[in-house]
């Protein structure tokens, strides 16, 4: 592990037929925050420093879909090589170690600050929480220059206050198409994939040839499998690669400067509706009251 430059030896061998890069972000577990704790942090936004991190749920789907893809590929005689990338601080390392234990061959993080400026405080804010352009440049550069990826899979968005544009920007930078709301991926051969996604008028299945970015939406697969302690032990010496953005040709400070829109506050909009609890001795009584008080009139007008 170290902030080394590009490791050319690590460039995947020609053995792998399909190189898949799955990207993820560790986000604060907003569900662990009480409403009262949505206090405004000094820097603007919600104070999330004290909450544990979880895998962004859409990225979690993407990571598991990539594992399943490689298993299906193996059964079909195609070798898929999996890489995982996160633009994140030290607090993403536990996730990278888990992914290595699960069979990801490369696990890389790119610290969100320019080299030397990385905040090494565990749990600290990433500094790139609202800089989709920078994050996308890093991912695209890594996919192209280091991992030589054929496929990039990542969640279609992360959490409250995100831009939802990272997958599109990655695709744009790579000059690849981007499929959104992806729910399933299946390799047919070394260059053909069958992808299920949800379009405006319903679910559809596409067969694709050539590289692309898949932005995973509400997939049925929403949980990453868990490695055993023995898997962890067996792969504990595999390094977690730490690359500086500069090594990928990305100048964080300069790009950051160009991203002029920054969210400075969040507020939830109260859309709760008033509920009425219907009292009654039995389900039958309650149904009758519901019908008499609310439904009868509506039914009659119909």
């Amino acid at each position: 592990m170290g902030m080394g430059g590009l490791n050319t030896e690590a460039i995947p061998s020609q053995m792998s037929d399909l190189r898949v890069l799955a990207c993820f972000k560790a986000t604060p577990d907003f569900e662990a925050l009480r409403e009262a704790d949505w206090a405004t942090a000094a820097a603007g936004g919600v104070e999330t420093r004290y909450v544990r991190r979880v895998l962004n749920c859409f990225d979690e789907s993407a990571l598991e879909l990539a594992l399943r893809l490689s298993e299906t590929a193996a059964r079909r005689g195609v070798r898929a090589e999996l890489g995982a990338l996160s633009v994140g601080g030290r607090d993403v390392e536990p996730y990278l170690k888990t992914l290595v234990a699960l069979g990801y061959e490369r696990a890389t993080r790119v610290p969100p600050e320019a080299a030397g400026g990385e905040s090494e405080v565990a749990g600290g804010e990433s500094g790139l929480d609202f800089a989709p352009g920078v994050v996308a440049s890093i991912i695209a550069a890594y996919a192209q220059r280091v991992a030589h990826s054929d496929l990039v899979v990542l969640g279609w968005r992360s959490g409250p206050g995100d831009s939802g544009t990272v997958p599109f920007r990655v695709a744009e930078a790579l000059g690849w198409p981007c499929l959104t709301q992806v729910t399933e991926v299946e390799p047919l051969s070394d260059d053909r994939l069958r992808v299920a996604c949800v379009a405006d008028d319903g679910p559809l299945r596409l067969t694709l040839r050539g590289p692309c970015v898949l932005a995973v939406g509400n997939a049925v697969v929403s949980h990453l499998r868990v490695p055993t302690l023995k898997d962890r032990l067996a792969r504990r010496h595999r390094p977690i690669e730490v690359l500086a953005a500069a090594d990928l040709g990305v100048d964080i400070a300069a790009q950051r400067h160009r991203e002029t829109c920054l969210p400075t506050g969040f507020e939830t909009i109260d859309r709760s509706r008033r509920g009425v609890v219907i009292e009654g001795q039995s389900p039958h009584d309650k149904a009758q009251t519901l019908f008499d008080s609310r439904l009868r009139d509506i039914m009659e007008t119909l």
Partner: protein
Amino acid sequence: MDLSREGVVDGLQRIVEPGDVITDEKILIESSVDNFRKLQNIFGVHTMPVPAAVVMARSTEKVAAILRFADRHGINVIPRTGGTATEGGLESAVPDSIVIDGSAMNEVVNIDAYNMQATCQCGVPLQVLEDRVRELGLTTGHSPQSKPVAHMGGLVATRSIGQFSTLYGGIEDMVVGLEAVFPNGAVTRIKNVPRRAAGPDIRHVVIGNEGALCFITEVTVKLFPYFPENNVFLGYTLKDMKTGFEALRAVMVNGYKPSVARVYDPGDAGLHFSHFVADDDCVLLFMAEGPAGIAKATAAGVEGIVAAFPECTRVDSAYIETWFNDLCWGPDKITAEDERIRQTRNVNRTTEISADWSSINDIYQAARARIIEEIPDITMMGGHSSHSYINGTNMYFNYFFNVVDVGPAEETTKYYLPIISIICEETLKRGGSIVHHHGIGKARAPWVKDEYGSSYYILETLKQAFDPDGIMNKGTIFPL
């Protein structure tokens, strides 16, 4: 049993409103297990005998009538309230049982803020009672993680314990009086007094009976003033559990009563505190509460004691406070966890034991090492101590494994029971107790005689005296 399945249903319909006798197949099947075999419910695979009916109890008199009916015909009865049991206490060990569901007996009967006690029926969810007394600036002091879903009857029946136990004690320290119905229909009320020395304390025949002696219909618990504004949180990281146990011991034996005193091992700490700990860190944490002067003095005292352990590094209290505020499990978390298990086949189980200060670390180390060595497919093996006393503490083993190459029904035999077995062996060997707060249920009943030794005579005699026909929750506490 001298009745057919239909005969049981028919008999019940004569005692209660027919609508209160539930025979819906899905509900019956779900009622044949609890969290001990939760995988069966999650995957829809069922192996336990299906009860004849779930009957909703609506009054003490009806409970008495149902029990008399069951006793007369030798029908197994399974008392139930919140349904959050983890040790098989709700499992139907034999076919055609009656599940008596007390969840509709959900009236808060009286909140007596002058005498600082509250009386409620067995089906009152603890959260409901707690919310009601909080409106008066009071608290029950009871806060098990299942507070949003467990009910007062079940909480008393299992000798449950909550997160603030180091200050308020377990449920046995809170119950002042209660009402219970025995299998012969006898309704017994134990009056609410501050203390008495009029013979043995018979509350303890009922508290912790796990539905194997009687049905609890009403309980009265103590109330305490609630001062959340005075809460002080303290957190530390450290590198080994032995030091953690020593620090807990030092706090206890020096006479301090923080409401929360816990130490997490690195595995368990990783689950809760990964945002501020390293891989190999343990976490020691405390909460002091009460009137301002006491909370402040307690926190200062604890801080002073922990300062004598240079291995402990202080962390920002806000980490502990934020974490603590999200510790309880409501239906939303339970459903999410079921879905996670369905997808990953990665199961989380827990087993809690207690022992004196001399043995606790050895039990923890020995059981943990054996489980990792002997049990396949373990993904996390850790735990924490969360309830401390002057003479010892508990260990809450928290572990995850992948269910591999077997169906959901075999999860208990391939993984769960062998793990429980190791924990019980290592605990008994060193003189500890194999059950700290979840109850024996059916899961740990095979070890009950070893747990009790010569005092099993007393326990066994209670069963013979109060349930001579053996109709109360067969297989629970007393192995079949």
